């Protein structure tokens, strides 16, 4: 699993569970209809997800890009709202091609927007490239760098809310740190290994801005990026 907003690094010695321990409801039967009544976390998660997919320009661009790549995303097949452990907000399960959203940890619409964008970037990478999620730490690092860079995880306001202060080029510092934390949460590797992997792929992956073409710092940037994406046939034909 790839996940964001991780808790502290996992205990070593056991075999690598690839982060699945954070998502205890994976591989369990879904709850009965009666158990999922109104006003539950599950219901709220579904409502917020729908709002994101229908109105958020980051998500809409990613959905369109995935559709163009042959991976049309369906709400009921590719998203799952579940309870998760710790401080995890979501994850991408490449084994089932599903984005898991942590209904007990996502409380606000803006947070849902960010988590969905982050996980859709992982899904987009899975769709367009042979990403070896489980055995190649550099591939995982690359996708985490891209997701932290392009989803709005590292805006100044979000960093200040985490009590991380910095201005000149701080975005890159944040992207590095969050990528390392995400790797440590789902893989039984040392911090040095994670840091080394991030350092080796940072330049290539920080500058890989697909499908946005720019780092979207606001919804207006994302809307512009969506427009450019829709016009890309004209662009490529006239170079």
């Amino acid at each position, binding site marked *: 699993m790839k996940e964001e907003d991780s808790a502290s690094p996992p205990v070593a010695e056991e075999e690598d569970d690839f982060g699945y321990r954070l998502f205890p409801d994976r*591989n369990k039967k879904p709850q009965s209809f009666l158990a999922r009544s109104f006003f539950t976390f599950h219901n709220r998660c579904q409502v917020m997800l729908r709002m994101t997919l229908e109105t958020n320009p980051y998500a809409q661009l990613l959905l369109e890009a995935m559709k163009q*790549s*042959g*991976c*049309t995303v369906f709400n009921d*097949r590719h998203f799952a709202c579940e309870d998760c452990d710790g401080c995890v907000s979501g994850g991408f399960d490449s*084994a*089932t*091609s*599903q984005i898991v959203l942590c209904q007990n940890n996502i409380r606000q619409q803006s947070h849902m927007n960010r988590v969905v964008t982050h996980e859709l970037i992982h899904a987009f*990478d*899975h*769709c*367009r*490239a*042979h*990403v*070896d999620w489980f055995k190649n730490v*550099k*591939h995982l690092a*690359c996708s985490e760098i891209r997701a932290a860079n392009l989803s709005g995880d590292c805006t*100044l306001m979000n960093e200040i809310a985490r009590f991380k202060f910095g*201005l*000149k*080029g*701080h*975005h*890159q510092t944040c992207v590095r740190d969050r990528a390392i934390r995400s790797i440590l949460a789902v893989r039984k590797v040392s911090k040095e290994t994670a840091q080394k992997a991030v350092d080796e*792929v940072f*330049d*290539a*992956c920080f*500058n*890989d*801005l697909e499908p946005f073409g720019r*780092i979207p*710092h*606001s919804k207006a940037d994302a809307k*512009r990026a969506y427009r*450019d994406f829709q*016009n890309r046939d*004209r*662009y490529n034909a*006239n*170079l």
Partner: protein
Amino acid sequence: QPPRSCEDYWWEWKHCRGLRHAFHHYYAHGELPACRRWRDDYEACRAWEKGRAAAAQEALCKSERARVMEKQKYAPVWTLRKSPPPDWHRPLDQDK
């Protein structure tokens, strides 16, 4: 026709010079943005539309191709797929 509409070049230039973008660029890259190129591209686009000037067309296309090359500067970490993952649409109960 030009790769982008002339309004798009104008917008990019105005946006690049704005305070908000300057802040975001400094926050992300540690330096202030260079916007001159968008202005040159806008003027080349206008010249192209008005008189179909060959020099303007060549300058604009060269600038845009350079932008594409800059994006391809780094060797990719992974190999791209030729077709989407085969299990993307597989129903969930078949995965178990």
